[in-house]
């Protein structure tokens, strides 16, 4: 069953796309990750133009983050004040990212930049999760308990000015680090079509020392607004948001996330993490091969839009 995507301007198999949305949905349900960093490369491998894949995936993440944040909000596990500070950074980052995107698009290097960013990001995140997964499995065998760092330990983060009290997180810290994190995530969102939770969550735990139980809810809250903005900016600046594709992915993702949440309870956490690491590294490897291997077509031909 083929369907013509009006913005991507390709005919695609509806069942394959729905399946891709579902598969990534299962993963995000299982691992509690947004899935943007897997979905965008998959769309590119399938033949969707990278610029359309990035912008449309940002649109899909809006939906999945909203459905995710509600559960955290009900448990009162969202620090809205911290989320808003992160969001201010996110807004600045999104605008910067879109400008950079437009610049790279004009000099014809945007596809390369997207691939490079993915190789770098997937490579580092994948290896981290992979190593962590192996370590967890070994530790479990040796009956060791992983050491948890002391939370209240003071670092350079606490020496910066503009300190604000965040009641929910029980912190009194400068707003410079959260804004900086927000900016970085905003840039990632607009160039790569990811929510950036995989960067934000560790940064919030290890850098800001926020309590673990409110970290995910807070990052989802920020992601909703940043990806909403990124979607609008891409639609406005580049006309690359394919609403048809987004709807297909959203519906696949919804079904997948339910299955994933169900499966996630049945598998062991360490095994899950190990699996996720392997998967991310595999996507990274494929992306790297396409950058390094002799291309099938030495010429890249594209329409000039007037």
């Amino acid at each position, binding site marked *: *069953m*083929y*369907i*013509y995507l*009006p*913005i991507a*301007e*390709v*005919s695609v198999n509806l069942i394959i796309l729905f399946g891709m949305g579902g598969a990534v949905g299962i993963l995000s349900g299982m691992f509690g990750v947004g899935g943007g960093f897997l979905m965008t490369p998959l769309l590119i491998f399938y033949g969707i133009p990278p610029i359309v894949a990035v912008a449309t995936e940002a*649109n*899909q993440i*809006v*939906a*999945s*983050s*909203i*459905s995710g944040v*509600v*559960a955290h909000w*009900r448990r009162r596990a969202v620090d809205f004040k911290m989320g808003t500070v992160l969001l201010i950074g996110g807004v600045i980052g999104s605008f910067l990212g879109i400008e950079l995107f437009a610049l790279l698009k004009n000099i*014809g*290097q945007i*596809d*390369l930049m997207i691939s*490079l960013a993915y190789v770098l990001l997937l490579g580092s995140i994948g290896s981290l999760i992979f190593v962590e997964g192996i370590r967890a499995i070994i530790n479990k065998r040796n009956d060791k308990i992983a050491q948890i760092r002391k939370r209240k330990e003071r670092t350079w983060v606490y020496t910066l000015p503009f300190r604000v009290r965040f009641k929910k997180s029980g912190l009194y810290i400068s707003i410079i680090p959260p804004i900086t994190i927000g900016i970085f995530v905003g840039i990632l969102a607009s160039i790569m079509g990811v929510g950036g939770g995989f960067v934000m969550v560790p940064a919030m735990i290890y850098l800001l020392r926020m309590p673990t139980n409110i970290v995910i809810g807070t990052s989802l809250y920020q992601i*909703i607004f940043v990806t*909403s903005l990124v*979607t*609008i*900016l*891409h*639609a*406005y*600046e580049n*006309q690359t*948001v394919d*609403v*048809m594709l*987004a*709807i297909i992915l*959203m*519906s696949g993702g*919804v079904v997948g*996330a*339910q299955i994933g949440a169900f499966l996630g309870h049945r598998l062991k956490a360490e095994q899950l993490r190990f699996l996720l690491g392997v998967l991310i590294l595999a996507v990274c490897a494929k992306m790297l091969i396409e*950058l*390094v291997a*002799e*291309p099938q*077509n*030495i*010429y*890249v*031909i*594209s*329409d*000039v839009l*007037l």
Partner: protein
Amino acid sequence: MYYYSFIKTLIVALVCIGFSFTNYASANEVEADLVVQLDDPHIQIGSNFFGEELLIFGAFNSGDLSKSDIIIKVRGTSKSISIREKVKKYGIWVNSEDTIIDNVPSYYAIYSNRNIQRITAQDFLEENQIGLEYLKFISNEKNQTPSIYKEIIKKNKEEGIFIEKYTGVRIVGDKLFRASVQLPKDINEGSYEVTIYFFDDQKLVDRDTSRVFVNKTLAGKYIYTQANERPLLYGIICVVIAWIAGLSVAGLSRAR
């Protein structure tokens, strides 16, 4: 689908018979040398479009059938394309500076009953841009262009956007011809020019030019125009859809 093509063939057959009658009837009057009919001058690209064929048929007035030839040229609107060569830098393949090529047809097909080189003189083919090798592209850069032109033709041929088919025109009986021109799935919108050349003994006897309009159908076209003409509103609507989708999923999981 089969039923549809059967009906199509039937109509073609009937029209052909009709043509031959009119030709016989007017045999002693002033004769038209070439009569052409397009099956469907309006082609819609729907959401499930995966290629369509354009049926062209007609009648010609031949003196000697063995020396009569038909060439059909279908040309889409011209566009500009940018082409970049990939070069290896620091171990990875990077796009180099782009070259802009103008006057590239968005679709181009040559259908004939035999090799066009044998049908008529090269000058004529060149002048009328009949045949892929005679397409006139325009470029601001002079060096390297032949290899780039070759590349454009190769790529478009692979995608079925450029077609050269020397067996594409079938001559039926002694006066009729028909061809079914393939339009691929990723075709551009616009007005396509269909020119039919009728040669008798290597000389052009008559030519007929008509137009075919290719449109994107409602949903696809509507989305495309909205995205390009009201980008801000379109973006906001995309986000609203995502919010509604997200909230309704959250609502569903709460209900359980």
